[in-house]
């Protein structure tokens, strides 16, 4: 699978963006995903792409809350592109991957034509995200 981006958990997305801009990244507009309780901003640097993720409301649940508590600002997942999310999820589940966050529409991909994502976890790999671009239906 091709890597789409690396996800970074950050406490302050504006200050983090400024530092990443100093490293050569150019950022797209931020997206507020109320359902997932996160603010997201994609940055591009040549062929590399990062996703900055901060929490909108720290009192509410979001996986990134636990990541920030434990590690502070840190890269915490790699997102891979899938051409068939349902099939890839089933393949990975047979290899002991666990669905952490079920398939859902990802607002952050709406500007790229829409997409759905799923987060999976493996004992020996950790967390990954899969994205299927252009896919909004057939949620599991």
């Amino acid at each position, binding site marked *: 699978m091709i890597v789409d981006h690396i996800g970074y958990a950050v406490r302050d997305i504006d200050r983090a963006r400024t530092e990443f801009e100093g490293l050569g990244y150019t950022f797209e507009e931020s997206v507020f995903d109320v359902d997932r309780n996160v603010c997201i901003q994609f940055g591009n640097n040549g062929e590399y792409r990062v996703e900055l993720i901060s929490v909108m409301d720290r009192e509410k*649940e979001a*996986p990134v809350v*636990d*990541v920030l*508590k*434990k590690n502070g600002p840190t890269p915490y997942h790699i997102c891979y592109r899938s051409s068939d999310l349902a099939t890839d999820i089933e393949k990975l*589940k047979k290899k*002991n991957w*666990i*669905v*952490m966050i*079920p398939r859902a529409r990802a607002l952050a991909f709406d500007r790229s034509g829409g997409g759905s994502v799923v987060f999976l*976890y*493996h*004992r020996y790999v950790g967390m990954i995200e899969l994205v299927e671009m252009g896919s909004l239906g057939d949620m599991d």
Partner: protein
Amino acid sequence: MTREEVYAKLLPVFKDIFDDRRIKIDDSTVSTDIVGWDRLMHIQLIAAIQDEFAIRFAVEDAANMKNVGELVDLIMKQC
């Protein structure tokens, strides 16, 4: 597997995941009894248990178990 056999195999998994050799578990143990047992650690624990026991939990079961006793019940259903 008997309940005792499940616990004999389960305890080392808890010790490994929470990196605590002194950890103790029984049917009434809940997440607040163990330091660091948050949502991320729960996923790590479930992944390790699936691997050790060669079983698979339903997503809802993995998310909704209330204590270690329920976890052991779920393991015993598949072993």
